[in-house]
């Protein structure tokens, strides 16, 4: 990667700096906001994972939250009193990623010949299957504890530092959520780099080729079945990691967190932001994570001030605006708010060999 120019570098520095001080600003408004930021980062993880499947490879996936759930349950089972296992997080997260990737492959295998709507229906079914499994695997052997979910999940621990308590470092008090924020931020950086590198690689190009014209891709030698499975597995593994972190942060999970509307929410983030464009997807995920929360905190006081009582529940307004935003996007910007740009590569050979003027 070449170093960006000076203004870009300055911009990058400013973004990095504001991301670093953000939790302090947020915690001034209440620790809840730091938690919201953490959840937003998790949704960025999920959106980036789904973007591999939907945005790069063009495979519509309505069951993506299943991998989030798989990752979360892997973490919960391996680090909670439920089985009495307490493995460290740096071991569980890769396991969760692998298990989710495996599930992605299992989902992908029977759908290889499906496209578009049909694929969407099958993936939707898969998402539900996983949720129902989680709900019912409390007997004959109590694997998932059913609808009660799993509680008292271990927080992330690094050496002596537990992420569930406050610590004072260099005179700064870091609360648990703030510590998670920095952990998530660091992991997010890794995920972004991985995504950037994947996109600009042999596999990434093959994904895009399949999205553009699967038959043509096969005819020039792309093993489409394998490459599609790779997309499913890779996308799912991001979901698995996000799920593990979710379980650690929440300390409690139940099948209710992994329902169809979550899948649709993640898909909406990808589509709203701009399928296939990393930065667009990140923007979409942040927008759809923060704006509803902002509404939650503003709509009620606003109505109290205007009408003296609560007319419409914040949750209802949230979903109304959410739907409206999607409809407007589809109508006026079907490619998303921040679509993919043409990637210019150095054409180092001498030009002037005909073709385009």
């Amino acid at each position, binding site marked *: 990667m070449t170093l960006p120019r000076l203004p870009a570098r300055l911009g990058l520095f400013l973004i990095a700096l504001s991301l670093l001080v953000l939790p302090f600003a947020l915690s001034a408004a209440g620790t809840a906001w730091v938690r919201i930021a953490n959840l937003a980062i998790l949704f960025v993880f999920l959106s980036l994972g789904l973007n591999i499947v939907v945005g790069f490879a063009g495979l519509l996936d309505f069951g993506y939250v299943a991998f989030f759930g798989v990752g979360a349950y892997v973490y919960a089972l391996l680090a909670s009193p439920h089985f009495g296992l307490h493995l460290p997080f740096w071991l569980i997260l890769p396991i969760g990623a692998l298990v989710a990737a495996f599930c992605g492959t299992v989902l992908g295998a029977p759908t290889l010949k499906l496209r578009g709507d049909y694929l969407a229906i099958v993936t939707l079914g898969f998402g539900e299957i996983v949720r129902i499994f989680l709900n019912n695997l409390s007997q004959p052997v109590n694997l998932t504890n059913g609808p009660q979910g799993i509680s008292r999940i271990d927080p992330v621990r690094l050496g002596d530092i537990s992420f569930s308590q406050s610590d004072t470092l260099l005179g700064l008090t870091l609360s648990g959520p703030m510590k998670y924020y920095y952990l998530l931020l660091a992991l997010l950086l890794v995920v972004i780099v991985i995504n950037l590198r994947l996109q600009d*690689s042999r596999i990434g190009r093959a994904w895009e080729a399949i999205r553009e014209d699967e038959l043509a891709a096969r005819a020039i030698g792309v093993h489409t079945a394998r490459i599609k499975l790779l997309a499913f597995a890779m996308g799912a593994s991001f979901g698995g990691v996000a799920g593990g972190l979710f379980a650690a942060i929440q300390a409690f999970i139940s099948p209710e967190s992994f329902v169809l509307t979550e899948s649709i929410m993640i898909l909406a983030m990808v589509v709203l932001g701009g399928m296939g464009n990393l930065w667009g997807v990140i923007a979409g995920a942040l927008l759809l994570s923060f704006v509803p929360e902002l509404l939650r905190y503003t709509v009620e006081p606003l109505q109290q001030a205007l009408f003296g009582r609560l007319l419409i529940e914040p949750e209802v307004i949230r979903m109304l605006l959410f739907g409206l935003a999607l409809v407007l996007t589809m109508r006026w910007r079907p490619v998303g708010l921040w679509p993919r740009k043409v990637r210019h590569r150095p054409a180092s050979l001498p030009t002037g060999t005909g073709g385009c003027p």
Partner: protein
Amino acid sequence: MTAPVLLSAHGIGKSFGGVRALHDIHLTLRAGEIYGLIGPNGAGKTSFFNTLTGLYRADSGHFEFAGQRLDTTAPHRVAAAGIARTFQNIRLFANMTALENVMVGRHLRSRSGILAAILRHRRQRAEEADILRRALELLHYTGIGDCANRLAGTLSYGDQRRLEIARALATEPKLLALDEPAAGMNASETAGLRTLVQGLREDGLSVLLIEHDVKLVMGLCDRIAVLDYGEKIAEDVPAVVQHDPRVITAYLGSGAEDDDA
């Protein structure tokens, strides 16, 4: 001409329901040859292409390619064996640049996987640089070097045809199968295509050509096979085929039906 046989079809048959698209097709293509496949619309030319390149499964018969039985169970195996094709109705990756289209063509001849892409180690970077260089070379070779960073879907019709050929060449084929490359081209574009295909042959490639433009086929091909209703009715050098009464009947029909031949 006694060049070795590159491709031979042995009794290829293919039916769709009750429609017999191909029946007992035998033909032989020698290395370094430009071999034309002509026939009226619906004669089975594209079906033959699709059977050869693994998009259709043949009901009977098999192909031999470069001395070995060709595995036509999957298109990517055919491509790996050394047969690359273009499509009658251009099938480019429209939202990728011309350069990226050709880079995808290098997929078969490169190896880096997911892990290499993430780690970007030295071998992967070298391979990427090689892919980029080869793709650029091919764009220049096919005469569209200046289009490298344009989206494939925005190129002119003739340039899209050229790009499809460049992408096919990126797979390092021994045999290039062109499905009506001159369809919809104007006279100067067709002339350019002719020069390009002749250049390919001079560079050692064999070409299997489906084409409706009879002038182009007659001027370009070493030998021609004529299909009609799924059967081969003639195979010879252009001068002989041109005067074969069965070919004339097939093209003009026994009545006063007119065709572009």
